[in-house]
């Protein structure tokens, strides 16, 4: 299945070795999408480099920017005000909601169910409107900056009220959708037991994120992050690692995100949102990890004279997609297509290479 295909939003190439329509072996080739982002970032001033990381991916753009800003703040040892941290978390959780809704809608489209896909896209519009209200743009909103949050993203009474209404609406509609979805025998027979990934395989192949949680391992990076300490949420796991488990994990994670946003809105502390009283120094390579909607995201770079050096970015989809090659074996082609989509692949994030020297 070539680079442009109806079920794949991004270009990649999947070679399936098929015998009588059952997949015997699979090979997913990435690399068509390579833009050399790490290479272009070399030598840019810090703020410009941060704004470039946002354009790596259109779906998870907020977490890329957040992580990149965290690297700079860790290296320069800047303390940001608490209100800024809460606002950053609200935006990150809203992004998680919209990314999971996109995954559900796309999964339904691959399944063949256009009606559910359209209903989910309609629910997703609410989140886009909220993000546009906070950040200014629907897709790349650019809320975190070094030192805090952009002053435009300040939340006043009216905006908090709108966010509350928005997430109540989302929670109600997604609950209805989940009840309807799981009680439909045609869909359930199509997704149960398809392309399972066992727990041992998942740990061996370095899978992260909701795909790992769907196989039964309880690991959520948000518990390790300092800024998530005041919030209380559950880690969602399912058992089988097949398509049904992946879908259900993400549906329940939407509910958890709604819980976190409600807690953040209730306890929003007062104060400034940005702290510009820091000064630029040279730093060594600092690393930062964050929980993106697809798994663990890693950024690292060093600062030299205000410019960025030695960027390394590693996205979760890189390992998840590789693990999917393993899970596809033994299934029918149409199910295999569903199996590739089940790990929520983001091929645009994945294409990366470190190429400082040209041969």
């Amino acid at each position, binding site marked *: *299945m070539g680079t442009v295909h109806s079920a794949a939003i991004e270009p990649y*190439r999947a070679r399936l070795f*098929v015998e009588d*329509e059952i997949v015997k*072996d699979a090979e997913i*080739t990435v690399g068509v999408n390579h833009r050399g982002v790490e290479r272009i970032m070399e030598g840019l001033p810090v703020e410009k480099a941060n704004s470039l990381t946002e354009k790596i991916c259109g779906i998870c753009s907020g977490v890329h920017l957040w992580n990149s800003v965290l690297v700079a703040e860790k290296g320069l040892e800047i303390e940001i005000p608490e209100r800024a941290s809460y606002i950053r978390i609200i935006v990150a959780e809203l992004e998680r909601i919209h990314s999971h809704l996109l995954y559900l809608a796309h999964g339904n489209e691959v399944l063949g169910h256009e009606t559910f896909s*359209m209903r989910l896209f309609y629910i997703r519009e609410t989140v886009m409107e909220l993000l546009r209200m906070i950040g200014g743009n629907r897709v790349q909103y650019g809320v975190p900056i070094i030192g805090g949050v952009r002053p435009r993203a300040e939340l006043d009474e009216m905006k908090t009220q709108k966010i509350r209404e928005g997430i109540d609406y989302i929670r109600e509609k997604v609950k209805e959708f989940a009840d309807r979805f799981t009680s439909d025998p045609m869909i359930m027979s199509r997704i149960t037991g398809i392309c399972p990934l066992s727990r041992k395989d998942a740990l061996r192949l370095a899978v992260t994120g909701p795909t790992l949680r769907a196989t039964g391992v309880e690991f959520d990076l948000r518990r390790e992050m300092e800024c998530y300490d005041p919030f209380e949420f559950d880690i969602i796991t399912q058992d089988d690692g097949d398509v049904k488990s992946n879908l259900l994990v993400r549906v329940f994670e939407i509910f958890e995100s709604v819980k976190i946003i409600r807690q953040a809105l209730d306890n929003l502390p007062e104060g400034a949102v940005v702290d510009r009283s820091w000064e630029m120094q040279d730093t060594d390579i600092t690393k930062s990890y964050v929980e993106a909607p697809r798994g663990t995201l890693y950024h690292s770079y060093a600062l030299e004279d205000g410019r960025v050096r030695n960027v390394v970015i590693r996205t979760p989809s890189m390992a998840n997609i590789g693990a999917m090659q393993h899970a596809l074996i033994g299934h029918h*082609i*149409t199910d295999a297509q*569903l199996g590739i989509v089940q790990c929520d692949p983001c091929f645009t994030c994945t294409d990366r290479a470190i190429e400082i020297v040209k041969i």
Partner: protein
Amino acid sequence: MEHILGAIGTIIIGFIVSLWLPGLERKLIHARIQQRIGPPISSPGIMAPLKFFFKQTIKPYSPLPRLYNSLPLIGLLSVFFILLFTLPEAYHLGALASIVAIVGFLKIEEVIYVFMGSLSKSVMSLRMPFPDLAKGAKHPNVQRSFLEDISAMRAFRLIAFGSFPLYIALFIPAVISRSIFLGDIVAYQQINGPILFSVAGVIGAIVFFIGYIILLNEYPFVIIKAKADVIEGPYMEYAAKWRALIYIMRGFLMFTLAILFSVLFLGMPPTIFTWGILVNILVAVLFPMLMASFSAFAPIFTFKQFYPVTFGATILGVVALLAAFI
């Protein structure tokens, strides 16, 4: 003379009604269920084929382009003949106006999918240029196949299993009225009332409905042209006027099968000079709408679900046959 005028008039009316059917299905049912405003009613059925007539004709990428291009015409002709032989003016033609002939023409219409699939080699499947051919090379020297070949094999299986429900449903009225000729079936129903109003008839109608969906390749039985993996299946290389023929053939098939239902189960052959034609048009409009409301809520069935469902429908058909004997 009157007979011939009546036949031509009925066919023309059938053709005109069938042009509106895809639009009705898309706007009134699919769009309403998906909570959006759909396209205007004339767009998918009439305006789309018309627009395709005005596009540049290209040579399809295929080993036998002229055969590939003529396949929709063969399909359209076979559907046309089915409609022709349900007209009462054609009943005196003997064996051509019987259930056996109709089964034969439906077979032709199904078999052309297999040919279309194996003859179409589109750019979207294998000819898409990619820098390397054998990266990783776990299994070198393996034959690479086009997406449409998979579709052709699936169409083959669909012919083998998927046509059972419709064919059994076609034979139920024949068993009840003790004859396979359409003229006798209609005459039997003029005397004893429509077959639909008996136990065997009701079950037969349900089986016919399921067979209708399978034959038209609508969701959930859409595996030969599922958007998820074979993009469009056998139709990939059609452009310009041949694609227009595909669209028209689909609308025509929807109409013709509904007319077949009204002849076999309701006993109302289409004649333009009586009010019965309105009943026929009503059935022709109702069937696609029912089918669309069922298919809007169904995912694509893979073979794992397809076999049990078809098997169940076949058993139901056999039960109806037995009930007809009693």
